[in-house]
């Protein structure tokens, strides 16, 4: 892990769009008056004729993207997660999901790490909302390298994809050789005592937590689950069979997100006994504060995850 290098995945999103513009000439990028924040501005500045600012109307943007895709274009529609998945849920469901159109949704500013904007803008429900839509692929990268990889993977596949990015600069954990594949997790660290399945900014924090746990003689296995839907069930089941203890970590409500997805998988398919717990926001809204303060308060940093893993193991 290159801990000294930190990049917010919203930047990766904007950079990836611009880098992939020539490779995907049918790509059209849409935004809803947040191009400067979502970083789709990077694509806009390079390909002004292939960028559409819809103004402040996210629902309309999603349905327009749906219409555009029926003409053979590949629309990437971006906004904050709160508005892309929240406000425009029904348009995503009915205009994009039901007809299974080739629209990619770039949702930035997910989770509490939005920071000072407070709870109104800290989306903790988007993974839950998006993964209930039949045929929707849901991706949540851990760092800059992986974020660029998921944009590429989303553009390469046919069908709707929800991509979740953050505002807060997070450590770069992968070098440029990291290859992301939809439906596959990444085993970042092997361990025998407990499995931590993490996504988004909680991946780097879980690696840090594993280091802290090792100092206490606890060997944690760490999985980066960037592909939340489809989930890498084989990797989760194999790890659960090995450690017998699985805990999830996400910057999202524990209701409906990665924790729920993993628990559904284990409950239905595990052949061996296991114990399970979830780290995330516990049926609560966020609040105003700096991203670092909030991440610490809600236990999503390395120390917080380490503490909760210990509580889980010792229960």
């Amino acid at each position: 892990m290159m801990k000294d290098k930190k990049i917010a995945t919203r930047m990766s999103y904007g950079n990836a769009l611009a880098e992939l513009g020539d490779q995907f000439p049918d790509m059209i990028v849409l935004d809803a008056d947040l191009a400067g924040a979502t970083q789709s501005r990077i694509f806009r500045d390079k390909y002004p004729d292939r960028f559409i600012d819809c103004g402040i109307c996210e629902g309309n943007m999603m349905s327009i993207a749906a219409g555009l895709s029926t003409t053979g274009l590949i629309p990437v529609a971006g906004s904050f997660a709160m508005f892309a998945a929240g406000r425009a849920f029904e348009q995503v469901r009915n205009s994009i999901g039901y007809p299974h159109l080739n629209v990619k949704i770039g949702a930035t500013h997910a989770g509490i790490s939005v920071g000072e904007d407070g709870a109104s803008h800290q989306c903790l429900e988007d993974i839950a909302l998006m993964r209930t839509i039949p045929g929707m692929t849901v991706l949540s990268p851990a760092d800059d390298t992986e974020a660029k990889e998921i944009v590429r993977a989303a553009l390469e596949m046919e069908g709707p994809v929800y991509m979740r990015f953050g505002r807060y600069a997070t450590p770069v954990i992968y070098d440029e050789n990291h290859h992301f594949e939809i439906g596959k997790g990444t085993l970042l660290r092997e361990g025998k005592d407990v499995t931590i399945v993490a996504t988004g900014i909680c991946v780097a924090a879980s690696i840090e937590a594993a280091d802290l746990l090792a100092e206490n003689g606890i060997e944690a296995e760490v999985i980066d689950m960037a592909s939340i839907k489809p989930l890498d069930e084989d990797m989760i089941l194999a790890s659960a069979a090995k450690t017998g203890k699985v805990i999830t970590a996400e910057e999202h409500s524990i209701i409906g997100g990665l924790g729920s997805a993993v628990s559904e998988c284990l409950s239905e398919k595990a052949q061996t006994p296991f114990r399970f717990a979830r780290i995330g926001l516990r049926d609560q809204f966020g609040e105003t504060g700096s991203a670092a303060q909030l991440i610490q308060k809600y236990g999503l940093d390395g120390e917080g995850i380490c503490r909760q893993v210990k509580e889980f193991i010792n229960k």
Partner: protein
Amino acid sequence: MENRELARAANEIRKGIITEVYSGQSGHPGGALSSADLFAFLYEEEMNIDPQNPADPDRDRFVLSKGHVCPGLYAAMAVRGYFPMEELRTFRQMGSRLQGHPSIHWLPGIDMSSGSLGQGISAAVGIAQGAKLRNRDYRVYTLLGDGEIQEGQVWEAAMFAGTKGLDNLVVIVDNNNLQIDGPITDVNSPYPIDKKFEAFNFHVINVDGHDFDQLRAAFKEARETKGVPTAIVMKTVKGKGVSFMEDQVGWHGKAPNEEQYKTAMEDLERIGMAI
């Protein structure tokens, strides 16, 4: 096409609507009947379409934003030859391609799934914008209900279309004045409809939606209008053509029983004979 032929097609569409809603014992006859003359005009005369090649990339597109009046769309497609008239009897029944609201996956010739009000116009705007981006010269038509335009998304879409000057887009409003809960003026008035679209930078044409000469002139004017999208606001009668359904809000979303079905078909046979 001669008005008499259009009138015959419209009457066949109306019979199809009644057949569908009666066969399925479910569906929305009122607004389908009010739009039947428009469906006949679009599918028989106006649109550049080929029932044998429904995926032609250069075809004109139609998005039924008021998706619940799909009995009218399906009947128009059957009359035009997209599929046998007999298939109309499967409407709203399990396994039928004629889903309760239009679906691009179930039926070739449907250009966009719809049903959730307000979204179809945005999709049509997207298709029109796509044509501009790809330098295609096909035209895009979308039909909205006058109740539907209470949805805020309609005006988001209108603002976008006006801003972008999408002159390949025609938005048609079926102004039959009735929505499920009553007259639109009692529920939440969208009037003046024409002035609203004008304010959103549309070229607006008011017509009698049951007069083919007026419809023909309006769509010609729309084609000749450059730089701005066109809205055609058509005054219609809900339930048009079936005596006991005309201007009756109760027939928005109700299926006729056997006796009512016979009366309705007799009404339409009589109209057909007179054409």
